């Protein structure tokens, strides 16, 4: 029964390798961390972590899924959900419809959120990944609905949930519908929690606004990638409102660890074993579907 969906519906994104390069066709990529020119092949092999300075490049959703899940185990769900335009939003400079079209072309995704089932080190889980390239990973109604359905699936099959977030927050173009996704996703994760199923949240660069202030930090364990920007207000907003220059390293994953906001900062290379271990430990008393 599961397969029909895969056969009848194209995934909401292009497969890894088809169109997932941050800088396509270039042999060399300049590292934003150290400015070094890096050989792209080498970067790919190293999970897009700079071999010189350990800068973690941003990953697209398909890359992230390939990195975190067992080969061929990911099965997408809810791929057919597409954003609507509930406010019929048009401003002097843009319309939401055009903006969505551009985002689709640029990211080869139908939305900023991709959800499905997969295995991590052999253990089944539900995984929900944000792609920052689709309108800054902003959370609108489809983002929220996909996530809530993913949580439903986890409850139904008694699976743990891994979310991977990289988002600028609520999607302005959907107005209050977007803000409400914070409450909607939180309510779903609260249900998951009441049923004693774990939620592990991985925060990657950048993670601010309504996503950080809702489901992404309502997790049993919050893991952050090194150097990721994590906060509520974005650095520009803080600087504008307080008229202060932010110190070096403000709102980084390391800063959040130091201030007690995240459980751990884990290099990309170690994410699979660390998250896999955590999932197994937290599922210890719960019979998990095999």
């Amino acid at each position, binding site marked *: 029964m599961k397969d029909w969906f895969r056969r009848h519906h194209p995934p909401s994104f292009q497969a890894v390798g088809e169109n997932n390069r941050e800088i396509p066709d270039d042999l060399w990529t300049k590292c934003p961390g150290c400015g070094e020119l890096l050989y792209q092949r080498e970067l790919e092999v190293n999970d897009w972590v700079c071999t010189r300075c350990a800068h973690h490049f941003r990953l697209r959703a398909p890359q992230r899924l390939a990195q975190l899940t067992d080969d061929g185990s990911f099965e997408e769900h809810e791929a057919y959900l597409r954003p609507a335009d509930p406010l019929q939003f048009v401003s002097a400079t843009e319309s939401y419809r055009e903006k969505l079209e551009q985002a689709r072309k640029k990211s080869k995704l139908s939305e900023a959120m991709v959800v499905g089932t997969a295995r991590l080190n052999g253990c089944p889980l539900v995984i929900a990944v944000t792609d920052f390239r689709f309108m800054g990973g902003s959370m609108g109604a489809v983002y929220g609905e996909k996530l809530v359905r993913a949580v439903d699936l986890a409850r139904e099959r008694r699976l743990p949930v891994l979310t991977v977030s990289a988002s600028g927050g609520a999607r302005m173009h959907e107005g*209050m519908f977007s803000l409400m996704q914070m409450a909607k996703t939180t309510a779903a994760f609260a249900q998951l929690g009441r049923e004693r199923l774990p939620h592990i949240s991985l925060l990657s660069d950048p993670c601010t606004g309504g996503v950080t202030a809702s489901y992404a930090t309502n997790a049993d364990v919050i893991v952050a990638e090194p150097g990721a920007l994590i906060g509520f207000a974005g650095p520009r907003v803080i600087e504008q409102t307080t008229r202060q220059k932010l110190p070096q390293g403000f709102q980084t994953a390391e800063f959040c660890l130091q201030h007690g906001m995240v459980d751990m900062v884990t290099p990309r290379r170690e994410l699979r074993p660390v998250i896999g271990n955590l999932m197994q430990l937290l599922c210890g008393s719960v019979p998990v579907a095999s």
Partner: protein
Amino acid sequence: MHPEPRTAWERVQLARNPARPKTLDYIDGLIERWVELHGDRAHGDDKALVTGVGSFGGRSVVVLGHQRGSDTRENLARNFGMPRPEAYRKAVRMMEVAEKFVLPVICFVDTPGADPGMQSEERGQAVAIAGSLYALANLPVPVVVVVIGEGGSGGALAISTGDRILMMENSVYSVASPEASATILWHDATKAPEAAEKMKITPPDLLEFGIVDRIVAEPPDGAHADAETAIRSVGTCIQTTLEELDAFYRTDRSYDRDRLLTARAEKYRRIGAWHEDRPQLTEVYSDVAEA
């Protein structure tokens, strides 16, 4: 009611009118035996969010509300009604009291937004807001929310995830202030009146979207012109709403936790709009038959 429906921008102005009744005015007018309780037991007491216990219509309740100042001095003390993380942690502490003693919670919403300062970031503003949302999602007593002025973004939402959301006729509730929306989407802060209109932030819009449940009528010239009447109308509406929730969820000594929490989750679950070109069932079955 006003003869002509007011524009969104007119409502923004009324919602921000300094003479408009604020949380403590509602508490003063509606809550008997009020005791304000201070502090998050960890860092400090945030005066931008008032919490306490009192009696409403003969029953004990917990009250949470954003509090703006009436003048510059009070506004500085209350940070213009913009809560810092300890405010939300104080709110969560009060929700624990509400759960333990089975007290309904009444929330008054009136904030431009959560404080965006450096110290708030250091103390985990995002985590604090998320914590308050999560606590509300798990709180097994009725939660009635009244947007009395400006419902500004996540800072407002953090104490407004409830079973029923009431909105005063001249209040607004938005994902970002009209000024911020104009800057982000129009690249021009002076377009705030247009942004207020297009972002659909008024009670009738939000009622239509299913985001709020009831609109509380204000005196013809607005709540500030006749505070007493406005406060009384809010009181009546809260009373009706609590009775309605009692009828649905009240058990012998408590509330039906599962039904209440499931209904609250479902209420939010319904909010949204999307296209769903789901494959037809016939397609599925024919496929299965082939295999």
